[in-house]
């Protein structure tokens, strides 16, 4: 039952069958009502936040939550940067760029830290267990490049107003490419999470990852604050879009803070 994926694997192992049987009995074997679905998802996520198990597992789960929130942050950040092209930049916008750069560096350092365990994992035949998500992500990236190049060529033949809403055909193509970019980011993040769950990581290495997760979260928080300061100064027609994007940035930051908190708590255990 897909609904149970909201719960941690260890919890599903122990209670999954019982809960699935209860959900089936409660819904009379028919469609599961939304009320029940929401209740199960909420309880599953609460269980994830609470999940016990060895501190190393909790640290890893916390760090991976930060990685997932960073992916959501990047998607909203790209949309923010695209919208910001139309407005001027100032000191607050420089802070947005600096903080986003620090976050990117922290994530790249985090990836570099696991290079050796990743290499050992692949040499031990681990590719077989991760090839599907990695190939899916590679395919999505290839599709994005194939769609992106003609779009750039096309954009060079258009005027500024045509590139920014007056040519609906170009606008549609732009949305398709944007969807490909979002899919690529999502699929690479999924592949990274699937892989990271299988790596043999020492406690010291996990502590390093937890530190970088903290830096990433701090960078997300700084970016969100600086972005808010920037667009409140710019105002005008961008207001509604900026409010929505800031809400996504703030949501991703909150998720990152949750992951960092979990990793830090597990580190102290």
């Amino acid at each position, binding site marked *: 039952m897909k609904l149970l994926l909201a719960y941690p694997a260890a919890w599903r192992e122990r209670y999954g069958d*019982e809960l699935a049987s209860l959900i089936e009995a409660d819904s009379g074997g028919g469609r599961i009502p939304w009320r029940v679905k929401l*209740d199960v998802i909420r309880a599953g996520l609460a*269980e994830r936040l609470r999940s016990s198990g060895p501190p190393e597992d909790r640290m890893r789960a916390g760090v991976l939550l930060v990685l997932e929130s960073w992916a959501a942050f990047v998607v909203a950040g790209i949309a923010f940067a695209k919208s910001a092209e139309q407005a001027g930049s100032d000191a607050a916008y420089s802070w947005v760029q600096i903080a986003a750069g620090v976050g990117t560096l922290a994530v790249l350092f985090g990836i570099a830290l696991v290079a050796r365990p990743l290499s050992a994992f692949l040499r031990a035949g681990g590719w077989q267990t991760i090839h599907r998500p990695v190939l899916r992500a590679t395919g999505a990236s290839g599709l994005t490049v194939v769609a992106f190049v003609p779009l750039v060529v096309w954009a060079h033949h258009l005027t500024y107003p045509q590139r920014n809403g007056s040519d609906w055909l170009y606008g549609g193509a732009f949305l398709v490419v944007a969807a490909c970019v979002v899919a690529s980011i999502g699929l690479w993040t999924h592949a990274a999470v699937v892989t990271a769950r299988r790596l043999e990581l020492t406690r010291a290495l996990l502590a390093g990852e937890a530190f970088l997760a903290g830096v990433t979260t701090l960078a997300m928080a700084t970016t969100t604050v600086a972005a808010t300061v920037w667009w409140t100064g710019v105002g005008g027609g961008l207001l509604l879009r900026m409010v929505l994007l800031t809400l996504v940035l703030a949501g991703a930051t909150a998720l990152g803070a949750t992951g960092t908190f979990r990793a830090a708590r597990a580190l102290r255990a």
Partner: protein
Amino acid sequence: MRATDPPFLILTSLSSGPKHGHALLLDIESFAGVRLGPGTLYGAITRLEQRGLIEPLGADDRRRPYRITAAGSESLSAALADLRKLVNEGTARLRAANA
């Protein structure tokens, strides 16, 4: 523990004998008028089992009955005593106000 807290309702239900998840939902609805969601019920079952207040019995197909432990009975008694104190106090104050 408050009277409408899922752990309190589960302990009360199990005090009359072991039950599996669906039987618990139906029993709680019948005596408390509260329809717990399956996720809420199993969240509370997880906590109660971790605290040693209930324990699982052998699985019957995919369903697993639970029973209250001695520690669970003690905890329920203490919660009921607290609740009784509150009921008595509230009743006495209402009576005094209406006298």
